[in-house]
């Protein structure tokens, strides 16, 4: 535990040096960062709000890694999930011609949104399993497809008909589809709790269930898996689908618990942050949760930091990169602080997974 802490600390120090280098004051900057992320109830609440999608997306990428798959497509799965959730959120009552109780509407919106994400990821999964089409390419492609698709929907069929609303966005979802905040006046919502629960479930899935065993086995040695009678192709598809399910959740929660609609310019770059978070968390659910909260805190605190010091938010990316660098490459940290190096390395991925 000491090593990761030192890693973060070192990253912060180096980041500080960077700030100094361009004539900023690192202490004001970090004070702002901390105030803005943990300084007050409101700040904490916002940090949780930021962390929520990161947890889901990070888990998505991590789960895929466990299955020996590299899911660069969380971004697209997330967007597709969000659109679906929004659609269910605002349109379902009209279709049924009746209002739904939240107890039914919320699960429907979240569930179907997640399923949409799962579907979006299952496609490259299936292509990988049955045609050998490479998941890295295909998930990237699916990103662009999802992106064009959502732009199309938000500008056309799903656009808010209200003439006053100029932006390309869906109508607001019905009240019955909204996940309520925990406390009045704060945006801190049940989605965060759900994220923690899901993280725990993912842990159980990976380490305690036979399905998890199959996923891990296929991930670490497909030949042995096949020899042991595991249906490798099916498992690959399932791993991707589950990964997409989680990514989809990230999108749906943003819609149902926070924005109450899907709009362009939402969830920019989550998919790629998710990769960083999964790697930072060493693909372990607990690690992912911590990494996600760290990233969320920094993104959230950035506002206050900029407000106090006018230091551009980009510096956050620099620090995040450094943290990932030092945590993932703890060999460096051990080298700097003269710790003795561990015997074996954690192998997160298997190159291109063939």
């Amino acid at each position, binding site marked *: 535990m000491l090593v990761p802490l030192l890693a973060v600390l070192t990253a912060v120090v180096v980041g500080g040096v960077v700030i100094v280098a361009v004539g900023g004051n690192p202490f004001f900057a970090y004070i702002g960062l901390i105030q803005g992320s943990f300084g007050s109830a409101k700040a904490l609440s916002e940090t949780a709000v930021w962390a929520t999608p990161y947890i889901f997306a990070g888990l998505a990428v991590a789960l895929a890694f466990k299955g020996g798959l590299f899911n660069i497509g969380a971004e697209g799965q997330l967007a597709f999930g969000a659109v679906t959730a929004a659609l269910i959120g605002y349109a379902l009552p009209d279709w049924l011609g009746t209002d739904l109780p939240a107890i039914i509407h919320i699960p429907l919106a979240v569930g179907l949104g997640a399923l949409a994400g799962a579907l979006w990821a299952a496609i490259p999964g299936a292509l990988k399993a049955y045609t050998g089409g490479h998941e890295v390419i295909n998930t990237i*492609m699916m990103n662009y497809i999802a992106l064009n698709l959502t732009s199309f929907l938000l500008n056309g069929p799903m656009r808010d008909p209200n003439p006053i609303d100029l932006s390309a966005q869906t109508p607001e979802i019905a009240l019955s589809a909204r996940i309520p905040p925990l406390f009045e006046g704060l945006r801190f919502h049940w989605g965060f709790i759900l994220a923690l629960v899901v993280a725990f479930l993912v842990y159980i899935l990976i380490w305690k269930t036979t399905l998890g065993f199959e996923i891990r086995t296929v991930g670490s040695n497909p030949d042995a898996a096949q020899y042991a009678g595991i249906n490798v192709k099916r498992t690959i598809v399932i791993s991707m689908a589950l990964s997409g399910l989680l990514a989809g959740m990230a999108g749906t929660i943003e819609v149902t618990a926070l924005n109450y609609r899907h709009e362009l310019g939402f969830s920019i770059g989550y998919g790629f942050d998710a990769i960083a978070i999964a790697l930072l968390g060493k693909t372990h659910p607990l690690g992912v949760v911590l990494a996600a909260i760290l990233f969320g805190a920094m993104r959230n605190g950035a506002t206050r930091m900029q407000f106090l010091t006018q230091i551009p938010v980009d510096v956050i990316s620099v620090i995040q*990169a450094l943290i990932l660098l030092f945590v993932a490459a703890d060999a460096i940290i051990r080298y700097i602080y003269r710790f003795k190096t561990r015997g074996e*390395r954690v192998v997160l991925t298997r190159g*291109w997974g063939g």
Partner: protein
Amino acid sequence: MDWKRFSFITLVIVLLFTVVVLVGSAAQKPVVIIASMLATTLTVATPLTLGALSGIFCERSGVVNIGIEGMMLTAAFFGWLAAIYMNSIFGFSSMPSLIVGVLFAILSSVLMSLLHAVLSVTFKVDQIIGGTVINILAVGVTGFLNRQLFFEKGSVFGGNVPHAPGTLPIIHVPVQEGVEAICKLTGGTEGCQTLANAFGKVFDQQPITIAAILLVILSHFILFKTRWGLRTRAVGEHPRAADTLGINVQRMRYLNVLIGGVMAGLAGAYFTLESVPSFEPVMTNGRGFIALAAMIFGNWTPFGAWAASLVFGAAQALQINMQVFRDVIPAQWTILQNSYVVGLTPYILTMIILTGIIGKTIPPAADGQPYEK
């Protein structure tokens, strides 16, 4: 790169061109359209091709590189920065400024690749991480410096827009004149002149675009015909075997990753020194990942990757032309008026090509695996 794949890709490109010609012929001479599309295809494909080459050198030596995007962005910024300093601070004229710019672009990208090499080869960190770090770092550093240097009052350029030294000049190849000469002989008809112009349009390209094409050929030669290439591939396929023959695996990997850095650097320079005379945060817009796809798509071969890049280029050209010709698109093809639908084409095409038709691509055997003695 097997012929099956080549011919199929060619077919796809031809198809894309045909669509545009059919649609546009209402408003424009086919030859003009084709020339214009060819030119666009080549220019748009340039950063993808170079990015893919960057990936090929890294991965042929056994180092996975998903940091191409980051390297490009870094190069785009620092190349531009150097050019501007030369031009507006040290008062050099535009040409030397641009050349220095290109050099700095390459240098900065090479430094990034060095970081990747240190992480992946020396510290044997999971190679995906090195790439991810570079991608995030690049966004941060370039965005950060861009702000500090060019926007904030009291910064080097005091918030004023610095005078960019323009872009690399077109290298004129006298093909057009040649055709015109022939036209003269054949009693220069107007059609012949249009043809001449068309040739001129296609052959007059900017340096980096031309360099990219030459580098494809050169890379193929290096990888498959020279000692260096043989050793590189050996290190990427079976490092221990190479080691037992006295080849220094770590060194080979380092150098190849650095070569990858050079390629990515040139790709970055394309953005700010050849395409447009300005830098914008995150202006590479994910092309590094498309390049990655092109590399895998081309089965880790230079020509394959180039062909793949051309497909993306052609698709881009299609998408632009469809909008330019929006008003003349025949009624039954209204679908083509929808920029989103057209925007999907390259990606769906890629997925289709990758599945049934081509199937599995085979990475170098030791790709992504650190070498332990």
